[in-house]
């Protein structure tokens, strides 16, 4: 446990001192601020535009931090060989994967928290009335980033180059929002395509389950889909971590 925390702590520290991480957070804050400009163009929907634009910005920049963090930390650690000095210590290899994941999640969570605090300050300045539904959407966004962090970590251990791991992580993120559309198209393309489509969608993360901000305003939306989404996110994350740990345990350096 102590070694997991040590790796998590140093992952966070490494990310926090990385200029790229700070630039991404700063750029995210600038974009959140830019939502004021878009809001001004939206007339009486100003607050709604600032709200949506800010949430999307925080999610995309959270995702960018997670993907680039997972890829640079793990792939570069293997390329730069700093991993030698960790793996020659008496810690089981899965602990390394878990420590990296927790540290990265903490760093991504911190960057998203900073962006959201800034975002909600702007909203309050514009006279926004707090909506509990929006606050319920935030943890779901966090869970989506958790899934993507675990998946990016898995990609970084599966593919040997950083660009390939990054491209696949982003591809999974995009396709993960279109599970229903993929199923629909596969269904119309024939029996085999249907089976292949179902299998593909089972492997893909179903991120639309975690897109609470799009549906939370709909009438009759209750707690059940949120709990289902949260359970799914936890299971998917655990599966990614278990696969990462298994892959990493067999890896040679």
């Amino acid at each position, binding site marked *: 446990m102590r070694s997991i925390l040590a790796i998590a702590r140093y992952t966070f520290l490494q990310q926090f001192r*990385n200029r790229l991480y700070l630039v991404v957070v700063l750029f995210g804050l600038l974009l959140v601020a830019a939502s004021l400009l878009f809001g001004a163009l939206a007339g009486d929907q100003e607050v709604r535009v600032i709200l949506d634009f800010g949430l999307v910005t925080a999610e995309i920049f959270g995702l960018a931090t997670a993907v680039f963090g997972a890829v640079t930390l793990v792939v570069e650690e293997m390329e730069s*060989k700093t991993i030698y000095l960790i793996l020659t210590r008496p810690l*089981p290899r899965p602990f390394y994967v878990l420590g990296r994941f927790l540290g990265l999640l903490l760093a991504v969570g911190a960057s998203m928290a900073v962006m959201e605090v800034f975002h909600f300050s702007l909203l309050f300045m514009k006279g926004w009335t707090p909506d509990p539904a929006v606050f319920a959407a935030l943890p779901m966004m966090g869970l989506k980033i958790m899934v993507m962090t675990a998946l990016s970590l898995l990609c970084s251990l599966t593919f040997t180059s950083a660009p390939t791991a990054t491209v696949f992580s982003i591809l999974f993120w995009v396709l993960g929002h279109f599970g229903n559309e993929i199923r629909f198209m596969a269904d119309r393309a024939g029996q085999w395509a249907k089976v292949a489509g179902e299998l593909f969608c089972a492997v893909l993360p179903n991120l639309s389950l975690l897109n609470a901000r799009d549906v939370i305003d709909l009438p009759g939306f209750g707690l059940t889909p949120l709990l289902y989404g949260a359970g799914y996110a936890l299971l998917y994350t655990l599966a990614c971590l278990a696969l990462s740990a298994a892959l990493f345990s067999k890896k040679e350096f």
Partner: protein
Amino acid sequence: MGDHVAAISIEGLSKTYRRSHLGRVKTSLGVDGITLSVQQGEVFGLLGLNGSGKTTTIKLMLGLLFPTAGHVQVFGFPAGSPEAKRAVGFLPEIPYFYKYLSGREVLRFYGRLSGIPEKAISARIEEVLAQVRMTANAGRAMREYSKGMLQRITLAQAMLHDPRLMVLDEPVTGLDPLGLREMREIIHGLNQKGKTIFFSSHSISEVEKLCHRVGILVSGRLARVVNQSEWAGEHGRLEEIFVSTVASGHQKAFS
């Protein structure tokens, strides 16, 4: 484990690398059928040309690579097991570190991973920093370090958990004459304290000064093990033995 157990015991160790690209698998030999035993308290040197299998042998001993055949034991424990790792301090050929962390932070990190109790860790860090003469610079970020300073911190992390066996991969490569002398003194001092030292090197003169026994690797095979008595008092004798062993090893390999 008692004192009678060998520090390192290698039996029939082979490693073949397999690399596949677009369905085509290429294999290359890392090491082939190495059998060797290093006793506790011994300084053992591994000599060989580039690509002869020195680093592969070390990686197999540390559990960074898995053998294709044979096995390695460290103080009676399988290489790569937590018990074996606890007994080993590793100095890699090139210092690899986190550029955003300071020397002291890096040592604390490795100390925690090595299982040093939290209460003892600070005192132990200062102790090893003093040993490698890095106390004054330990607070600086590692990206500001010179090569010599990086080498000292690398050595400090290897000594941090007071291991019984030090595995040093090319410890004198790239050091200036002063650094070379300091490294020699440190290795000698560690051995005086009862530590077993296993190191690979290109530098025959350093191996000659430090080792009780030397193994010569040729094309992945352990061609010969030489005792100190075979070169002691005869300047250049180890070099002669090395050159003739490598030449006959290559002849055998080609025939």
